[in-house]
């Protein structure tokens, strides 16, 4: 037992030394490390687990943004950043021009229930603070569904659309909580349904999670998730 504890303490000390020895500030990513929770999709479609979280998204590299209040976030996400901002179904590698910058959409699968935007941006050497992320995904349902709800959490503020209808907005400096924002009852049409989110982060960690709840508030699982252009 004593030997084990000594090994543990040594390992902890090494870890702490390594952590504080990291150069630079983590909120502005100068180093490009692999995103530990995100991978490039390797299958045409993905199905949710029993808890229903949508784990495949295509995410745009971050855009500068600063404020988290409701009024500011609503104004920020409604700015015209790029053509088709509220309608396009981007695919992996597609580029859009935002001001002077050319930004790229990246398709990701997440290992977890949530999508870690900090990992995403940090791996690309992009800023993680005072930024706006756009993410899009498509769920494909077998038949029309009524009375379901989109249930989301985000760090920090976020605004959500389902099939181009704004359905949720949560604001302020907040952490991701499962089923924090829940939409009113809505209908999903048979076939593809597009979910779009804009997440505004102030500082520190940033991520989001999303799933649908059925009319009994149980996670919806009977659908597939795809990203990329679709025949509509």
């Amino acid at each position, binding site marked *: 037992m004593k030997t084990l504890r000594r090994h543990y303490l040594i390992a902890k000390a090494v870890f702490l030394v390594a952590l504080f020895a990291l150069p630079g500030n983590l*909120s*502005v990513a100068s180093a490009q490390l692999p995103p530990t929770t995100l991978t490039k999709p390797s299958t045409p479609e993905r199905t949710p687990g029993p808890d229903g979280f949508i784990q495949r998204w295509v995410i745009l590299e971050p855009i500068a943004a600063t404020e988290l209040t409701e009024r500011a976030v609503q104004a920020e996400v409604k700015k015209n950043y790029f053509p088709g901002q509220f309608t396009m179904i981007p695919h992996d590698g597609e580029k859009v021009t935002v001001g002077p910058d050319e930004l790229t959409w990246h398709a990701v699968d997440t290992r977890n229930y949530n999508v870690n935007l900090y990992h995403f941006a940090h791996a690309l050497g992009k800023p993680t603070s005072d930024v706006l992320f756009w993410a899009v995904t498509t769920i494909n349902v077998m038949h029309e569904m009524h009375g379901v*709800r989109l249930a989301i959490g985000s760090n920090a503020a976020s605004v959500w659309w389902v099939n181009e209808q704004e359905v949720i907005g949560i604001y302020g400096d907040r952490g991701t*909580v499962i089923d924090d*924002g829940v939409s*009113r*009852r809505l209908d999903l049409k048979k076939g593809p349904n597009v979910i779009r989110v804009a997440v505004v982060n*102030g500082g520190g960690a940033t991520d989001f999670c999303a799933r649908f709840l059925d009319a009994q*508030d149980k996670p919806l699982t009977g659908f597939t998730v795809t990203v990329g252009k679709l025949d509509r």
Partner: protein
Amino acid sequence: MKYLTLATTLLTSLTFALDGQIGIHDPSTVVQCDGKYYSYGTGGGGLVSSDGWSWTRGTALPRRGLAPDVIHIGDRYYVYVAANIGAQPKAAINMIWSKSLDPASPDYKWQEGGVVASSDGVEDSNAIDPGVFLDPNTRRLWLVYGSYFGFIREVELDPRTGKRINPNDKPRDLAINCEASDLMFHDGWYYLLATHGSCCRGADSGYNIRVGRSRNVTGPFLDADGTNMIQGGGKLFIGSESRKIGPGHFGLLDLGNGVQKFSIHWEADLDRGGASVLDIRPLLWKDGWPVAGENMTDGTFEVESVHTGTALEFAVEGVPVGGRRPRPLRPPGVPRPDGPPTASAGIGAPPNGFGGMFAGTGSPIPPQDVAQVSKNWPAGTGGLRLANYLSQVQQKWTITAVPNAGGYPGSPYFKITIAGTDRALAASADTELVIVPSFTNAPEQLWRFDQLADGTWRITPKSLSGTRTPMALSAIGSSFPTLEPFDASQEKQHWLLKAQ
């Protein structure tokens, strides 16, 4: 008439005891028949209500006597009513039954069922004050009775006929020095409730209701200290309160779906000239014991979800109380720190010690002025959401009883408005929630508050177009409420009301 007007005014302005003609002594358990509520008291007089809130005089029982009790089994209503058949304690309890309690019904025909228990005037019993109980586990029917002289006794009845199963069986002694007993079952325990103290002395009555429990319907019934009720034990369930004196004659009113109430009479309601009146209150449970809950009263509250800990608010951008506090300035090029700000990082912070942004203003910050803050609110119908409670005006709700809008067992309907405004909470046609610009008395703007077994509240609209399913306010997410069919086991439908 002048007295009645005054009493009604006092009733609606001070308290929310029941409305209407609620004078009664020794009321029976309140029972429902064809959508109406009924109770019968000493003398045979009855009270009837279509909603459990507003009561009127009902039709008297054909057999008049002392402290009736009533139970509904199958298609019959059995009424047990006692009478002295000589000098007390010589008494007998008779049973009568009918298929309806509504005199307008063709089924309203009373039949005599005979004597089910008696006392001979010498034995240690006074066979009055019956309380009848159908065991939900065994479907066996029991009668408890007695009044001070000797014991509270128990005999078994036949649930098919309401009569004594075996008149020769010796009654079992359960308690002493009390009267108006009744039984109920909850979570593996049988509870014997009985009224202690003196009755019939108006505001000088010492009536109070006490309880013991047992794993067996036949006892022994011990109080929380382990004292047997047959030795005078009994944990206090409800005593006199404020301007209501002498509660007695407990009766369980189980509305189903986890909502339980109880009926009593107060020996003297000081706001009604000291009259003996009926009351209905929520029945709560704590640590395996029944607790007398409270009906809703007017006030201003934070409405907080038990499930999420977040509070109901009008969906407008909040303004921090005292105004926005500037965050520490960062010099150009210095990135945002990862951790929370520190005192020493605050504006104006002293080199060492407490101060800066954590020091406050040095004087009390007044509450927000809703007239000022609401200038920026949208004029029309708005949304509702949940958020961390920050003492902001859009998070404070004034709950007010609405006169002449009806009610439910124990309470009138209420309106829920943002404090200091007429903006009212309403159920929308799509079974969601909105804030309308002003209260119009519409049914979807009237709200029912039922205190649940754990002391939290169920909040339901009076009616909702498009559905007949009772819907309750539900914290579907940390930040969003909705209306859903009520399920008492769902924490998201339990709410705390925190007075402001």
